């Protein structure tokens, strides 16, 4: 038991030489790796932690801005208004055609 512990401690001290060339090389490589990774950055919204498109589903809108906004009820009302206007155009055209034929 004590002999095993002693050999372990010997191995540890041999492996970790503070300020040695190995640790310097390893530290520099780590710094370079971190720099490289930070430069690349996330490839999409989901990779950055925000909800975004997944491999099987497309998603367009993930965040809210602080600018001018429209209530969805207004959007729906305008859409129905557009539909109604086109519909009315058809009705008016049909009525005019009927009167013209008469």
């Amino acid at each position, binding site marked *: 038991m004590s002999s095993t512990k002693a050999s372990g401690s010997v191995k540890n001290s041999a492996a970790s030489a503070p300020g040695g060339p190995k640790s310097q090389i390893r530290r520099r490589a780590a710094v370079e790796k971190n720099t490289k990774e930070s430069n690349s950055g996330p490839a999409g919204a989901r990779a950055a932690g925000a909800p975004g498109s*997944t*491999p099987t589903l497309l998603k367009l809108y993930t965040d809210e801005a602080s600018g001018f906004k429209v209530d*969805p009820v207004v959007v729906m009302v305008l859409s129905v208004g557009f539909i109604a206007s086109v519909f009315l155009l058809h009705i008016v055209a049909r009525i005019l055609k009927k009167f013209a034929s008469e």
Partner: protein
Amino acid sequence: MGGARFINFIKPLSSLLPEVEGPKTHLELVEKLGWMAGCVVVYQILSIIPVYGAEKTDTLDPINNFRVLDGSSASGLMITGLAPIYLSSFLLQILASKKKIAVNFNLIIDRVLFQNAQKVVSALLYLILAVTYVSSGYYGSFSDLGIFRFIMLILQIFLPGIVCIYLCEIIEKGHGLGSGPVLLLGSHILGNIMWDVLSLHRYPVNESGDSQYQGALVGFAFNLFSFKNKFSSLRSILFRSEGLSFVQFLVCIAVFATFMYTLNIRIDVPIRSSRVRGVRQNFPLKLLYTSVIPLIYFYSILSHLLVFAYALYSLCPNSLITRLLVQYSPIDTFAEHKLQLVGGLVYFLYPPLGLSEALLHPVHTVIYTITLICITIYFSLLWMNATAGGPRDVLLFFKENQLVIAGYREATMLKELEKIIPIAAKLSAFFVSILSVIAGIFASTFGVGVLIASALVYASFEMIVGANTSLGNGN
């Protein structure tokens, strides 16, 4: 930041398209489903209402059956469909992931600029398509229409596109569940198929006044129990080419079953916690890793190509470029009225629809299949990396949750993931492409529609259940 960025450059245009406000309070599930249903209804109505001001021409539809797949309708306001939304979002997300456009997704402000850019590009594509349709004489030539009706038609075709963009945004801002474009496309495909299966509408098939039901199931049942011209009518409903036939309906069911079966095929990567000993679980890596997304992207590009090809054909029908790119043959019988694509480069990107078509033109079938497989595999790999599905992203996910692959050291995990995940993406694209070609040959665009709709519905279901755990628990 050095240099002008695309998302900043496009920012002034974003002010023309204001943002939809997210819900101020928590919406119940029923309210969300109500919003989704409302959006679908608005979209369907846009597809049904005819365009005002069109000249009564005998224009044949060059896109015809393919409209099942891109969300458009031949006679309605929604003639441009959903292809611009899909194309712009795919394009921008892939460009951003390849660093072609500089977006720092770690910043909320950049993410907002990015999604606004997607919206603006969608609107621009809708405008381009609207101008192209009207300029090509689809609704009558300029001399017949006059300037007022010309502009009126462009507006009528363009504004439904803006409405579509906002319908998608309403759903995705939190008023609905899942993805907006997926909901609209899925509902469009399923609506078309439902109509062609159960419709009671009859159409003439010959000069003698004989008619046939449009619905495949209805027609089959009716002809089975009727006695007038029994066998010819039955043969017509079983094998007709002008709409969904009963045999094609059966093929659709087979495609659906095949796809559902394939959804469950996966590789279980054994993982364990790097902290707690003895806890083992599986990380499922599905065969259909990117599902039908690459296929939809390909079809959105094809939709645009078909519109531009038709414009080229109608504006200068005899030029050399037109003959090289696209050649049409008009089909104008009692039952069918369409412009059939028969030659040119665009022809080899158009799927063979129908068994006779595939057999009579084997070169087209082979070239299309190979082209489709290559393109979708390429798109699949791009999409995998763009949506946090690549090997590095999965490794990051493992690290964040203190997980390691059982039997591998941390240094070799990336190599293992880089081996299996791209293969999953490639196999996914390959399988979906083959299945879509087979579905197209035996069940026309309806088979491909079933394939796409099944994938979209399943993906939406997966996301919704994942986001609302109470649904999964059966509460």
